C-alpha cells in the first residue's frame, strides 16, 4: 500500500509539479504526530482524492443545497428529500424509509447502507461546485469537517458509507480510483501534511 501510495503521488506529482502556493491547513492532532510534511506529494495525492470525492457516488450526498443528487448526471433526487437537521431526512421522507441497510437488488432500486444519510445541517460538508482547494481546506478544517482530527479523518476513509461508493449496486458507475487506490491517496494526502492545492 505504501508503494502504491508513493507511485500514485509520484505520478500525480510529475504531472502537476510541486504546488508552491499550497497552503497547509491545520489538522487537529497534528502536534502529537510526527509528520513527514511534503506539500508536493500531499497536493498530488489530494488531486486523486478529489476525483473520487467529486464522483457522483460521493458527491451526490454532499450537495450544495439541502436535497441530495441522483444518478451519474447528479440531478436533484426525484422526490426532493430534504436534509433535515441530522441529515437523515424529514417527516415521512427519512433516508432510511427507502434506503435499506443494504442495496436493494435490481436496476435503479434504492441503494443502501446502514449509515445512509446526508451530512447534518450544521456540518454540511458540501462537495458540489467546490474546487480542489476549497474542498481540501474544508476537509482539513476541524470546524467544518465534523470535528474530525487527523486520526479520525484517516479512519473516515474506512467508514462503511464511504466504502459503499465501491459497492453501489447494479448499474451505478464506480469512482475513477479503486478503493485501495483511494485510501492510499487519502492517507498520503493527510500524512504528508494535508496540503490544499493552490486552486
Amino acid at each position, binding site marked *: 500500500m505504501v508503494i502504491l501510495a508513493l507511485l500514485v503521488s509520484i505520478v500525480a506529482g510529475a504531472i502537476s509539479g510541486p504546488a508552491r502556493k499550497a497552503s497547509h491547513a491545520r489538522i487537529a492532532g497534528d502536534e502529537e504526530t510526527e509528520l513527514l510534511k511534503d506539500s508536493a506529494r500531499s497536493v498530488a495525492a489530494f488531486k486523486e482524492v478529489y476525483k473520487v470525492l467529486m464522483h457522483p457516488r460521493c458527491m451526490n450526498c454532499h450537495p450544495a*443545497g*439541502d*436535497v441530495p443528487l441522483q444518478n451519474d448526471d447528479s*440531478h*436533484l433526487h*426525484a*422526490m*426532493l428529500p*430534504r436534509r433535515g437537521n441530522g441529515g437523515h431526512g424529514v417527516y415521512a421522507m427519512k433516508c432510511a424509509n427507502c434506503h435499506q441497510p443494504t442495496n436493494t437488488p435490481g*436496476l*435503479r432500486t434504492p441503494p443502501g447502507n446502514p449509515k445512509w444519510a446526508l451530512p447534518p445541517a450544521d456540518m454540511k460538508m458540501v462537495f458540489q461546485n467546490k474546487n480542489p482547494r476549497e474542498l481540501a481546506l474544508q476537509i482539513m478544517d476541524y470546524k467544518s469537517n465534523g470535528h474530525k482530527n487527523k486520526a479520525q479523518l484517516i479512519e473516515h476513509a474506512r467508514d462503511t458509507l464511504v466504502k459503499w461508493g465501491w459497492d453501489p449496486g447494479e448499474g451505478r458507475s464506480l469512482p475513477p480510483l479503486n478503493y485501495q487506490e483511494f485510501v492510499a491517496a487519502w492517507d498520503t494526502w493527510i500524512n504528508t501534511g494535508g496540503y490544499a492545492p493552490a486552486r
Partner: protein
Amino acid sequence: MTKPFFKNNLPKMTDQTNSMNRRSFLKSTALAGGGLMISFTWLSAFKSSGKTDPGLPAWAELNGYIKITPDNIIKILNPNPEFGQNVMTSLPMIVAEELDADWKDVVVEMGPHDSLKLGPQFTGGSNSVRMYWKPLREAGAAARYMLMQAAAETWKLPAEELTTHAGMIVHAKSMKSGKYGEFASKAAGIPIPKEVKLKDVQTFHVVRNSKKNVEGLKIVTGKPLFGLDYHQEGMLIAMIAHPPAFGMKLKSFDASETLQMPGIKDVFTQKLYEEGFEQGGFDTRTFNDLLVVVGKTTWEVMKARKKLKTEWEPAGETKDTMGGGGRKREIVVPGDLESTGAQLEKMQEWASKPAQQLRRDGDPETAFKHAAQIIERTYNAPFLAHNCMEPMNFFAHVTDEKALVAGPLQAPGWSEPTLAKLLGLPADKIEIQLTRMGGGFGRRAYGHYLYEAALISKRVKAPVKLIYTREDDMTYGIYRPMYTATYRAALDARKNLIAFHVKGGGIPEHAVHANRFPAGTVDNYLAEGWQIPSNITIGAFRAPRSNFNAAAEQSFLDEVAEAAGKDPIDFRLELLQRAKENPVGKNNEYDADRYAGILKLVKEKSGWGKAENKKYNRGVAAYFCHNSYAAHVVDMVMRDGQPYVERVTSAIDCGIVINPDAATNMVQGAVVDGIGNSFYGGLTHKGGAVEQKNFYDYRIIRMHEAPKKIDVYFVQNDIDPTGLGEPPFPPVFGAVANALFKATGKRFYQQPYIPQLNATPRAF
C-alpha cells in the same frame, strides 16, 4: 399489433347508449308544473327473482337497481365500473333522487356484470352519467310508484292522494305516513309501470347536493376493494414474461432454474389468440405468445421469473383478424423495431405527403394565396403511458363448466363475448365481478389481461391471479399515440382570420377532429389527416385525440390572436360569435353559446386582465370534447428558473352537476394530471423497446409541483348532464403552453414541455 383507426374499427361507443335510449324514450311528455312523463319498456323486462337474499335482512327487490328491507335500508346497485370518477356515489344518487329516498338510508353496492339488468356497464368516453341519467331516473321513479301503489293498497286509499318525502309515504288528509321499508315486500309484487312521472330538476334534493364518496371510509381504512386485493383460497399467482420490444417474439426459453425456485408450480407458453381469431373492439393485444410463470406467492413468482433464460427474435410482419361491427377484416401489423428518432423522421416525411381530406369549407388554397400574413406552426407529442396506480391484474377461476373472473375492468360488456369465445363457454357461464379500479384513464377498457388470466387459469386448472409489475405495465403497450400536426392560419390586411388549415398525423393514428372549433368560424377551412401503421399498440387515454388537439390548436390560436393583435379570450369569443350568427358548414360539433359561456365565465372568475394578476404569467385555453366544455386560466410563476403553476381557474359546462364537490375534485385532478403530463409525460422507444420502465424514468407530477389553488366554476343550467372525466383534461395542455410563453418568452411546440427548458426538477 395496431388499430390504426381504432375508433372506426368499432361499433361506435355510442351504439350502446343508443340502444338504451331507444328502450327508454318510447314516449316522453313534459307535464304542466314541471316534470316529465316517461314511457319505457326496458325496466319491465326485469323479472324479480322472487327470492330474497339468504340471511337477514330480507331484501325486497323492486327492480335491478333497488332493494329495500322492512326496516328501511335502501340498497342501490351501481351499474358502472368505478375507477375514481365516483360513479359508486353519483349514479346511485340519481336513483335515490327519483325514488325520493333519504340519502342517509341508502347503502350502495357494486352491481354484478349483468347487462340485461344493469345496462351497458361501460366506463369510458365520459359516458357513465350521460348514458345512465334517464334510465336511472326511470328506475328510481318506477320503484317510487310501486311503493306508493303498495301503500295505497295497504291503507285502502287512492294512490293519487299519496305523496312521498325523504323515504316516507304520506297521506296528508289522514295524517298517515310510513317508511318505504314497510311497503317494500308488497311493492315487489306490483307490476313495473310502463309510464312514470319524473321530477322537475328544480326540485332535486339529492342530485345537485354534494354527497361524500360512499367508499371513502373503506379507502382510508385499507379495506380490500381493488382487483389486486381480490383473494380466493388456493389461488395461485401468475406473471408473464413478455418480449423486450415491440416487433419481437419468443424464440426459445429455458425454465430449468425458474422451476427450481421455491413456490414455483409451472412455466409454460400460452397463445392469447389463435390464428384467425376475430378480435372485438377492445381486444387489442400487444404480445400474443406469452411465457407464463405460475407459483404460490407474488414475490416467489417475481423472483423466479428473473431466472428465466429467454431468447427473442423479430416477429416480422404479422396479421390481426378484426371482427366487431359485423365486418371481418385482416390488418397487417408491420414488423419494424421502432425508435423514437426514426419515428419522428418518418412523421416529418409523411407530413409532406398528400393526406386524406377530412373537411373543406370555401376555398382555402386561394385564401392562403391572398393572405396578408400566414402563420404556420408544427406541434409534436410523444406516446404516453396511462400508469394507473394499480398495475394491470385480474383474477380468474376457469373450469370446464364455468368461469369466475374478477378485477379492474372498464368495459366488461365488450370483454365478455371475447372471453366466452376464448374459453369455449356460453356467456351465461361466465361471471365477471367488477372491483374498484386503482385508476383507469382508458387503459382498462382493453381486456387482454383478463383473457390472459382466464387462459392461464384454464391451463393450470386452478384459481389464478395474474399480476403485472409496474415495469410490465409500462412496457406492455396500449399507449396514447404519438402525434403531430401542422396548423396554418391566414390573416387579411385587417388581421381577420380568413383561412385555417390543420394537417395532422400520428403513429398509428392522427388526432384531427375536423368538425370541431375553429371549424364553423372561418370561411375557408381545410382539415386533413394521415397515419403511419405501427406495431406499438395504442388505445384511449383520457380524452383520446382531444388531449393532443387542445395542446396544439389552443397554443396555435394563442399565436394567431397575438398576430391579430387581439386578447386571446376576445379573439376566441369573436370567432364563436361568428359561429353562432353565421356558421360556416353544417356539421359543427360544438354549441357556440356554451363554448363562449365557459370563456366568459373563466374570464370573469380569473380576473383576466386585472392589475392584481399581473404578477402571474397567464395562459388560457378552452376545449369541447365528450359533450362538455372546459376552459382554464393557468397562473404560472418562475422559481429558480423553473416554471411552477401556482393557481388555476376553471370554468366547466357539463350540464346538471350531479355531485358538485366530487365534480370539483375531478376537475382539480384533471388539472393536476394535465400539468403533469404536459410538463413531464413521454414514452420513447429504442429498437422497439420502451425506454422507460418505472416512475424513476417516467416522471409523474408530485405534491410539491401541484398548484396551491384550483378554483372550479360550473355553468349553472338545467341541461341533461354530460361527461366530466375527460373534458377538463385536454385544455390544461394548451393553457400551460400559453402560460409558458408568457413566463419564458418562448413558444413550446413539443411535449413534454419541461425537457424543452433543459430543466432539472424544481428545488423548493
